């Protein structure tokens, strides 16, 4: 039986998820996650046409609040090492 997951897909997913994996990790995850997906095949048995997806356990109503400015007492830059003046410093975008 053809496996859904192969090393090429795992590499592609890792790129999308912004996470570097070693060759060893790619190999290991491909095998382990293929087993997990095999176990998930049970879902194919059940028909779900016309069934609404449950994004939450109960229906959640949107809660609106005033768009008002709230001053925080804490300094958002406290937990970063990469800052310049009042700003966060990040890697190059282009």
């Amino acid at each position, binding site marked *: 039986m053809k496996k859904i997951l192969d090393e090429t897909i795992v590499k592609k997913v890792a790129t999308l998820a912004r996470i570097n994996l070693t060759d060893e990790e790619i190999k290991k995850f491909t095998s382990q996650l293929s087993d997990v997906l095999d176990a998930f095949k*049970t879902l194919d048995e059940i028909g779900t046409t016309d069934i609404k997806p*449950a994004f939450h*356990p109960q229906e959640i109503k949107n809660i609106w609040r005033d768009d008002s400015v709230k001053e925080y007492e804490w300094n958002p830059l406290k*937990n970063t090492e990469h800052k310049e003046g009042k700003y966060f410093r990040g890697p190059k975008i282009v």
Partner: protein
Amino acid sequence: MKDILKKANEIQKKYSPFITIADRVETTGKGRLSGMAISVKDNICTEGMRSTAGSKILENYIPPFDATVVERMKKEGGFIIGKTGMDEFGFGTFSVNCAYEVPKNPIDTNRTCGGSSGGAACLTAAADFSHMAIAESTGGSISCPAAFTATVGITPTYGRVSRWGLIDYANSLDKIGTIGKSVREAALLLSVIAGYDRMDSTSLDLKQEDFTKYCKENEKIKIGIPKEYLIGIDERIKQKFWQAIKVLEDIGAKYEEISLAHTKYALASYYIIAMAEASTNLAKFCGMRYSLHLQLKGNYDEYFSAVRAVGFGEEAKRRIILGTFARMAGFRDAYYLKALKVRTKMIEDFKKAFKKFDIIAAPTMPILPPRFDEIEKLQPAEIYAMDILTVAPNLAGIPMISVPCGFVNKLPVGLHIMADHLQENKAIQAAYTFEVNK
């Protein structure tokens, strides 16, 4: 008070329930928790006290604010004794996927306390002083460790307790709850932390309520026992379970065996949803505003990918990969959307059952607490399967309590009591009735 920190350090040496122990203790208010030591699971933010969520990527993270539950606890006079150990971001069933010390079961230190709130349950079982734990469950992370340590764990209805300040795993599943030595203790702490909070957009518009008032006996409980929850269970656990049902029956409860037909799909549905949500939640850990930092090198993608490779543990990486896969174009409908639709079916099963029954009862875990050397041999798919009894009620967001119901070879067994949305009262009453009559 000093004495309590000394005791905490002694417990740490024996069983390692903590990731961080408070360096001083102080109470900030007078109230229902006056003078009581409260431990906080390490994925819940505590002002000025390191909160790692069990991950190396948050090793140095000191939150500048308290989570709502912590703020409420402090106002009632409780004080933080420390932050308890857990699987990284809650990713596990045995608390072994942790970047810090793994908590050991006080009943047998070669065995797990369960997970992911393993440290919380471990400390609750080990403490010989007044203590209760704030824990958190996504797919069973309160019930499982409570069952494995002979403590009482309450997971409330989704939305009953504010998630503001929780380092989230899966937004549609995460619930902050409590672990105590008795039903009354766990209910007391829940009374303090529950209730509407404007900082959490999924918080239900509910007033605060005193749940300890439901700690009274009810002889006329109507119990549904789902036959699917007794398949593949350790026979000795099943025996203890039926003995527990007999205790309730002897004082007047009635039970019927029922079917929750979609139970066999629960694991797949749960893991797909949980991993999909986790993979988006963990996107924020990229080494910029907080969390692990590396030297800024390379472009945006290169820097983030490098930080995350170093900061996340193996199970976190595995879940990010599978969760991202399940949401990818071409696979999304077959996995993520399908899982959400199956979840609807499971919620309907529960809703139907609760029209007839006050509670649904089952064993909490299919196995006794395993030894660490046994856990090492398990593959991820086998470990995920251990959550078979807890994932469905967690997907449905219904309240549940694990209450101790005896021992097999000196190892504890948990009775799992589930109730309909917002019917914590019924679950607490049933758990209390069992506790005082067993």
